[in-house]
């Protein structure tokens, strides 16, 4: 039997181990700050340093965050779970062991559905999510004779999300990671920043003939620190393994390093993988017990998930999925929307403004809506003025919104009045402007009367100019048509 040599005869089988650094204020087992960017060894105390006699003390916020992500990934929450010690020596691991969860992780048996480019969806199983502490950092390039150790990161909380080997392509892996990054941000669990190492990924990769049901021998590729590298590593590893197997060789189970410069994988030194971690339950920490009440509290404090949000918005407001997704992926935008909503007369206009002109203003300034100087209630009032035809949309956006930002006033209507931005409702004024305009363009009036109806816009524009924009174009239109009858 020939399997053929083409990559088309094989499929990729992969599962990911995704490390997510949680964005708690303090470390997982001490009151030391967990913030990024401090000077080396500033965020350390007895626990981070593993001084004699020091003991870990669990930060409950870490548990709550892990449960949030577990619920979002449709996991079963192990309401009794415990910590284990993973024993190994390294310079940036001051205790000589890492506190992690081995036999009883906090979440198990979940799944996530991701959408692929062709519009199809793929369900990827989540095997487990466990809690652990990060190690410190060894710095090898700052001193000629010594390696330096920075323990600021030692003890920063991590969760590791382990998927089932359900991934069949680099695209699926990348879609999964993108979705998880979106979720951790949405749930305020992590900043999800791959460049700063808040989101890191290892990939278990194997191949098998298409239609086969057994798994091939897998290799674990470590240190994939960008979405792009995940794709590259998978593509490279797939080709490599197909080549080995096609040539009659066997895949040897091993741990590989991804070289981002070359785009290739290479085996780690065997020494690095010969560890026997001697896991056992950490006797310094009692089992974590998540009571029904605590679980209910965590659930109640969880924001709606992105999928729920966009589906709801599409249903409630009849907007497009693309527009709805903008709210689902930006909780501050959603919060802004929800604050403005009770105050507006036309809900659809509010959405249109937020995904249109307001979004343009924000992206031009490169800020989030949380930093927008116009409060939701003020935006609602400006919008209402436009909907009531008391203000043109153009003036509202170009003049009133900046004015609101620059004025310390709550009353938007008064502000618009005082700045003389409101549409003139006085027909006499408009009459005057129309006469003036028609006079200016008398030749065109003649043309119009001979059937060249297209010039109407010219008259309207001129009237608008004379009214300094504070007029309702529709009304001008009507009045001019009346005059030209």
């Amino acid at each position: 039997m020939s399997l053929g040599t083409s990559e088309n005869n094989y499929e990729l089988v992969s599962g990911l181990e995704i490390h997510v650094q949680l964005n708690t204020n303090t470390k997982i087992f001490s009151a030391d700050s967990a913030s990024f960017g401090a000077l080396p060894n500033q965020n350390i105390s007895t626990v981070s340093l593993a001084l004699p006699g020091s003991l870990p003390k669990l930060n409950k916020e870490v548990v709550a965050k892990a449960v949030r992500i577990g619920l979002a990934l449709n996991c079963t929450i192990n309401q009794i779970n415990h910590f284990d010690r993973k024993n190994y020596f390294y310079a940036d691991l001051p205790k000589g062991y890492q506190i992690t969860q081995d036999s009883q992780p906090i979440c198990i048996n979940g799944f996530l559905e991701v959408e692929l480019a062709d519009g199809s969806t793929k369900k990827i199983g989540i095997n487990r999510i466990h809690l652990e502490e990060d190690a410190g950092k060894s710095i090898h390039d700052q001193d000629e004779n010594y390696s330096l150790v920075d323990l600021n990161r030692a003890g920063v909380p991590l969760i590791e999300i382990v998927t089932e080997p359900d991934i069949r392509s680099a695209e699926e892996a990348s879609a999964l990671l993108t979705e998880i990054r979106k979720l951790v941000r949405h749930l305020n669990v992590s900043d999800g920043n791959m460049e700063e190492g808040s989101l890191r990924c290892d990939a278990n990769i194997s191949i098998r003939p298409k239609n086969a049901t057994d798994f091939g021998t897998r290799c674990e590729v470590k240190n994939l620190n960008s979405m792009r590298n995940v794709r590259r590593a998978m593509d490279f590893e797939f080709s490599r393994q197909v080549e080995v197997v096609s040539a009659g060789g066997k895949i040897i189970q091993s741990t590989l390093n991804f070289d981002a410069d070359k785009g290739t994988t290479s085996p780690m030194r065997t020494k690095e993988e010969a560890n026997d971690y001697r896991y056992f339950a950490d006797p310094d920490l009692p089992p974590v017990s998540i009571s029904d009440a605590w679980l209910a509290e965590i659930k109640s404090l969880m924001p709606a998930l992105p999928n729920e949000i966009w589906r709801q918005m599409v249903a409630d407001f009849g907007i497009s999925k693309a527009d709805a997704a903008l709210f689902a992926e930006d909780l501050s935008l959603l919060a802004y929307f929800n604050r403005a909503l009770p105050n507006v007369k036309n809900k659809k206009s509010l959405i249109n403004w937020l995904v249109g002109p307001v979004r343009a203003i924000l992206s031009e300034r490169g800020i989030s809506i949380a930093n927008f100087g116009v409060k939701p209630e003020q935006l609602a009032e400006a919008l209402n003025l436009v909907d009531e035809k008391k203000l043109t949309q153009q003036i509202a956006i170009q003049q009133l919104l900046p004015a609101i930002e620059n004025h310390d006033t709550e009353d938007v209507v008064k502000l618009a009045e005082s700045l003389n931005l409101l549409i003139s409702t006085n027909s006499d004024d408009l009459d005057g402007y129309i006469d003036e305009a028609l006079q200016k363009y008398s030749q065109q009036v003649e043309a119009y009367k001979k059937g060249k109806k297209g010039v109407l816009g010219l008259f309207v524009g001129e009237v608008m100019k004379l009214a300094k924009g504070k007029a309702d174009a529709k009304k001008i239109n009507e009045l001019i048509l009346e005059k030209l009858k």
Partner: protein
Amino acid sequence: MKKYSSLKGIQALISQKQLTLPDLLAYYFKQIKENEHLNAFNEVFFYSAEVQAKAVQQKIEEGNAGKLAGMVIGIKDNICYKDHIVTASSKMLDGFVSPYSATVVQRLLQEDAVIIGRLNCDEFAMGGSNETSYFGTVKNAVNPDLVPGGSSGGSAVAVQADMCLAALGTDTGGSVRQPAAFCGQIGLKPTYGRISRYGVIAYASSFDQVGPITSSVEDAALLLEVLAGADENDSTVSPLDVPAYSANLNQLEPKRIAVLKETMESEALDPEIKSAILESIESLKAQGHVIDYVSFDLLDYLVPAYYILTTAEASSNLSRYDGVHYGHRNAEAKSLTELYKLSRAEGFGEEVKRRILLGTFVLSAGYYDAYYQKAQQVRRLIREKLDVLFQDYDLILLPVAPTPPFKIGDNMQDPLVMYMADIFTVLPSLSGNPAIALPIGNNKANLPLSIQFIAKHFEEAQLLAFSQAFLSL
């Protein structure tokens, strides 16, 4: 004969102005000087103790002193005291200054105890004779050729030889009770989780408990009262309220006491200890206590289970002493691996290395199930068995050590002989129950003998009240 044997006596003298705390401290300094050959102290805190003594004397005069005002106490050299050296009697930590205080030290100071120094012990509390200390063997004050027991040997001898009123030890498998027994003192191991371990250098985390060594039950009760109770920094401490142990020492009803038959029938048990215990049993009966002999068929499993579990935990707990961040570091190492190997080879003594190796082995892939997991199961069985016994009995009676203090050097050649001597003390260590060693006179060679009582979890109040009555028989 000791000059001072209880805090109450000292406080009376101070309040009658017959004694000041600085004078008392000077007396103990003199005692320490005279007993230097016993090698009980790794360091005497001359300066900080004197400062503290003066400050407390002032407080006494002002009438706002704490519960322990007048108590001069020594701490085992594995308990951290801010800005003081703590070594665990190991070369590994020789000269290491702790930047923080253990919870027990904070609580002692808060109640105005004076901490006189740090006491010699077996290296990292691993040993039963105080012969594994990097700073030399401690000698029994009864006879300097004999061991004081261990691992809190310095703590026991310091109290025995009147070098301080009381001492703190730590008890993992008998390290408070057995030296107290060898030195004729009272040694209490509280329930696991009663006293914070924060700042206590770990040997085996699920066993270690701080315990007092005293000459009176009253002082043990008072110390427990001060030291026990919830601690923000140790999540294995029980949140249970701390009873006023010292105020309730006189409430005694007849007890139902179980004597573990196999312990009394053990071939290893010294005949003089046996007969002394039998005598105690008779007088307890005469006092109206009900005594039953009950079978405990797990005796043979105690020592193996204890050594598998404690060495496993120790192998992990002692990984932090790697020469990188603090402690002994080999200066010639050329690589990280070499640094680890040389620093640890030089920094640890033989017994510590033996236990790290044993513990590493029992946790290793392929052996975990056969050793560590099995031992965990045995531990659970032992707990269950004791729980069943405690449904019918208030206390369990058994020996502390199978022999009186032995000669220095006698047991050092054969670790197994040394380990087997822990057989009676490891029982409550495995189950977590509180236990106390109480003196029951001397043998013909004038060596101290001792008896052990175990109580239900967190029933120290009952155990102490009973002990008080027992000693006044």
